[in-house]
């Protein structure tokens, strides 16, 4: 009788632990998915910001048509491929980032434009959006790290293997231009 009860209790405890670990894994995996979606949100924000930026700059930078056009083209392309695979997207977004930093570097030689309140506000917004894209990627990577730790470490790796949890992929910067942080200074 007694050994039966003890075994029963142990089984119940193990079951509760199992459920707890399983739920924890689900929570972490969902956080990874959510973090990925957040990157999208920030990228879309950038799309919406750019036309405004180009319009404001156009009035002052009459001799920089090619640069401005390059920005618009890159932005449209990025928006187009936003529904495609991760590889395509990363390339397009990287292109857009480098074209933008080129534009902002050119702005340095236009003091009138730099003094424009509107433009300054847009610049702050753009800088912040770039930061937010960076941070959302960072948070995605952090989430993947937490999730991978759980799936690799004992004892949750047992549950993970049993229930088919695969490890997550880190977001890596592939474009060399993007890897070099754009030096954007507003002084």
């Amino acid at each position, binding site marked *: 009788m007694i050994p039966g009860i003890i075994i029963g209790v142990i089984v119940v405890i193990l079951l509760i632990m199992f459920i707890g670990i399983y739920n924890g894994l689900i929570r972490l995996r969902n956080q990874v998915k959510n973090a990925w979606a957040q990157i999208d949100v*920030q990228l879309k924000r950038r799309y919406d910001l750019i036309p405004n930026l180009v319009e404001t700059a156009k009035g002052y930078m009459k001799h920089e048509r090619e640069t401005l056009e390059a920005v618009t083209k890159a932005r449209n392309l990025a928006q187009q491929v936003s529904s495609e695979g991760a590889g395509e997207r990363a390339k397009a977004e990287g292109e857009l980032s480098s074209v933008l930093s080129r534009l902002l570097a050119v702005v340095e030689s236009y003091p009138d434009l730099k003094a424009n309140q509107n433009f300054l506000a847009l610049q702050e917004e753009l800088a912040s959006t*770039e*930061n*937010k894209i960076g941070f959302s990627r*960072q*948070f995605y990577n952090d989430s993947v790290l937490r999730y991978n730790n759980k799936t690799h470490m004992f004892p949750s790796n047992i549950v993970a293997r049993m229930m088919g949890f695969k490890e997550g992929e880190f977001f890596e910067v592939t474009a060399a231009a993007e890897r070099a942080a754009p030096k954007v200074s*507003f002084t």
Partner: protein
Amino acid sequence: MLTIGMGALLIVLGYVLGLYFFDSPTAGLVIAILLWAIMSLVAYFQGDSILLQMHGAKKIRPDDHPRLYNVVEEMKIASGLEAMPAVYVIDDPSLNAFAIGRDPRRASVAITSGLLRKLNRDELQGVIAHEISHVKNRDVLLMAMCSILLGTIVLIAWYGSRFLLFGGAGGRRSSSRGGGQGQIIILIVALVFMILAPIMAQLIYFAISRKREYLADASAALYTRYPEGLAAALEKLGSSTIQLKSANRATAPMYIVNPFRKKGLKASDLSSTHPPLSERIRILRAMGGASFGEYDSAYRQVHQGGEGVIPAGAMAAAAVPLTTRKLEGEAAEPDEVQRARETSDAMWKVSNYRTISCDCGTKVRVPPNFREPQIQCPHCGKPHQL
């Protein structure tokens, strides 16, 4: 761990007093826990708005302070906070900031206008990251619970002592207890706990507060990946001694620096809610990466061995060393006070005065004809060798 200790203190106090006054430890326990529950409920529903009103904090819209709002949003993303906290600005020349919110979904961050003016973007990011990590780590909830625990312990001890003074009614009436000796022992035990419990609870409270501050610093470094930002901000904070006018003892732990920073109080001093600024800065600057593990080893390095400060559960999450990456710094906006200070510093130098920076933040100006071997700081009295 410490919180459990505090809770245990409450339970023991209730038990012992119940034993003495009512011959029933359970009654004492029940009363203690009930008191605590009532005070907790009241505090929970009182809300954060009272605290914000007390400081005259004004809620800002995104367009009012775009840089501040953007920084808060960036840190919200980096930390994974569920909802964007409300952002408040307090019109006060002092340098301080705090975060409130028992629930990460309904949090608020407040900063003084003085601090907002003084910091550049990286430093502001560090400060905001520190505050948001208080919300994310549920420090606000924890500290509120602890202060209520502390309050309950103090309350019970006080009432216990009152009853004792006014006749010790319950004790004498007992007839089921054998002999006077048992009574006296219980009385002594009760007295000891009544005196010690509030003191011990206070010390535990301060220790908990300091520990959470270290954790918040580590979290800030993790979110920004740039501990130098927070370190530089803390340096600027340390060099100002203007007191925040509406600071309140009860809410002291929530500020980024101790608003009651008194002159030269060596605040590794057990009665401080915050660890000393210079130490925090040193730890942040000793970090080789941005993970919690890095913060822990930097902490141990600064303290020359001994145990770390990050709870083990938090460390498992970041077993991989993370890189520190410098964000796009922005030049600080020209500040009149700053320029005035720089000018006066130059004037002093021209007149051949020496400048010594004291730990309390004062700049001691030594006249050129001063011949003594040491000089005392006029603010905190600490002697400096010449």
